[in-house]
């Protein structure tokens, strides 16, 4: 009963939000939150640190930009194409990266993503430093015009909810159990008969696809696909969001994404200081609260519940 009430409140807040807060901020937050949720599937639940997730996010946004600007497809086709391309890239990169573990895995994904960045710098369809600008938002299914801010917001909200639902289902399934087993002790999972490489590759591909979904949606919101989206800095940002919010928690990446986006929006005029502050947050979280904001809150609640109440009963 309490749960149902909670969900009702969440739903009402999510639906009313664009009337209270600047919709573009909300949509940016939702896109990056989905990006972080997809990333958390890898880092939080499988224990794989990918330092190259910007490649999937950015490439999907280029695909949407190209498909909608040049071929004039409807938004849902564009987003589908972007997600698909990101998924295929995830399959290829994952196939290479899972051959190494731990720290090497992070370096391999970072290097592969840097390759994508250089590719996007040179390939003609990305328009180099300019990026793809003024991407038309089009009409959803050929009917709903997405240029109307509130329509766009509800569309982004639906995409976000759908993506989160996929991750939730994946994590709370036998598949997710195996992923967590791999995170805790990979040799043991192998010895129990699980083909851990297959599971890791499946998780990587799913995560890359959803990162692509987030990037594709972002391209429609901002009508822009640029080199920033494939830069290693963006890969670092999604790590920061997940780490700050709390990896391995359902709500952590979402909270982390909104905090990071809010910091960026507030300090946008200060230029390099945004980078400095982000770096400082990395250092502070790693040194002081590795569970992240949501993780620490959950831990506090758990400790409070475990403590015997002063009245005895």
């Amino acid at each position, binding site marked *: 009963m309490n749960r149902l009430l909670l969900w009702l409140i969440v739903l009402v807040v999510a639906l009313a939000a664009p009337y209270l807060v600047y919709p573009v901020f909300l949509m940016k937050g939702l896109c990056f939150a989905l990006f972080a949720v997809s990333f958390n599937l890898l880092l939080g639940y499988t224990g794989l640190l990918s330092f190259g997730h910007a490649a999937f996010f950015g490439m999907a946004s280029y695909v949407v930009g190209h498909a909608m600007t040049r071929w004039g497809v409807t938004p849902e086709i564009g987003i589908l194409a972007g997600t698909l391309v990101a998924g295929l890239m995830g399959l290829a990169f994952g196939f290479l990266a899972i051959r190494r573990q731990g720290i090497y895995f992070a370096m391999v994904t970072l290097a592969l993503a840097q390759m994508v960045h250089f*590719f996007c710098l040179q390939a003609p369809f990305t328009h180099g430093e300019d990026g793809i600008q003024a991407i038309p938002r089009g009409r959803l299914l050929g009917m709903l015009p997405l240029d109307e801010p509130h329509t766009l917001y509800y569309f982004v909200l639906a995409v976000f909810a759908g993506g989160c639902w996929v991750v939730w289902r994946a994590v709370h399934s036998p598949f997710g159990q195996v992923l967590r087993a791999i995170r805790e002790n990979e040799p043991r999972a192998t010895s129990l008969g699980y083909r851990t490489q297959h599971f890791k590759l499946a998780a990587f591909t799913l995560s890359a696809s959803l990162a692509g979904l987030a990037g594709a949606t972002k391209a429609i919101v901002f009508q822009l696909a640029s080199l920033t989206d494939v830069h290693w800095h963006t890969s670092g940002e999604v790590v920061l969001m997940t780490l700050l919010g709390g990896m391995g928690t359902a709500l952590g990446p979402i909270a982390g994404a909104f905090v990071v986006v809010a910091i960026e929006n507030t300090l946008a005029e200060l230029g390099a200081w945004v980078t400095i502050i982000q770096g400082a947050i990395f250092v502070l979280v790693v040194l002081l609260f590795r569970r992240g904001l949501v993780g620490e809150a959950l831990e506090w609640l758990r400790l409070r519940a475990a403590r015997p109440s002063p009245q005895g009963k």
Partner: protein
Amino acid sequence: MGIPLPVLFGQLLLGLINGAFYAVLSLGLALIFGLLNIINFAHGAQYMMGAFVAWLMLTMLGIGYWPALVIAPLVVGLFGIAVERTMLRRLAKLDPLYGLLLTFGLALVIEGLFRNFYGVSGQPYAVPSALQGGVNLGFMFLPIYRGFVVVASLAICLGSWLLIEKTKLGALLRAATENPSLVRAFGVNVPLMITATYGFGAALAGLAGVLAAPVYSVNPLMGSDIIIVVFAVVVIGGMGSILGSVLTGFGLGLVEGLTKVFYPQASSTIIFVIMAIVLLVKPAGLFGKAS
């Protein structure tokens, strides 16, 4: 192929210089990884700091190249020691990924600070007067400074190799890499050794930065540009042996130079492509031990 020899050799020399920096930087990364078990993401930032300290000393204090070649690595090394003592030490018992995340954050802070004060346009640093000019080798023109960088890097690599493989200190270091608690039981101050190793690795990066300052311009972004390539170099070579890191570094620099001559579009991606091929054929890396 219709490519004039001077062009070919010129690019090969540039490749050799890039390779020299890859070699020195991956050497430092491998040293730090061996003892601290972390990948030092701040290595690029420390390389950039070396170049900037040299440049600041020249413009603010009028201290020239040769003193900078000693002082700048010391400054960066001391900075490294402070970082190890105050932060990295606390992560010793945790998953090594936290070390990567912490040093990544540090790299962002350092890079951001320099970018804030000096912008992203490069600052020129003049070649020291003793090494100006060049010699005509008949088949190509060799700027003396570039030759010096290659020789100096080789000397640094050889020196580090001698230090680690042929001295008592090096033997202790190798022993501590294999089994730190046992070496500690023999009365060796391993924590001090770890601090010194991180400082030495950072100083090596700083030294590479000073060497690089007259070749490339001094730029806050120079570190992150090179460090990701160095990561790929490390994945290709494996971090098992010093000689392996050095050979891989120089070799890949040369390959990059050749690519610039024959297929320039791929020159920035060739190392990553090689990395992908190595991962398919020999996942542990060319000189790495299978884990």
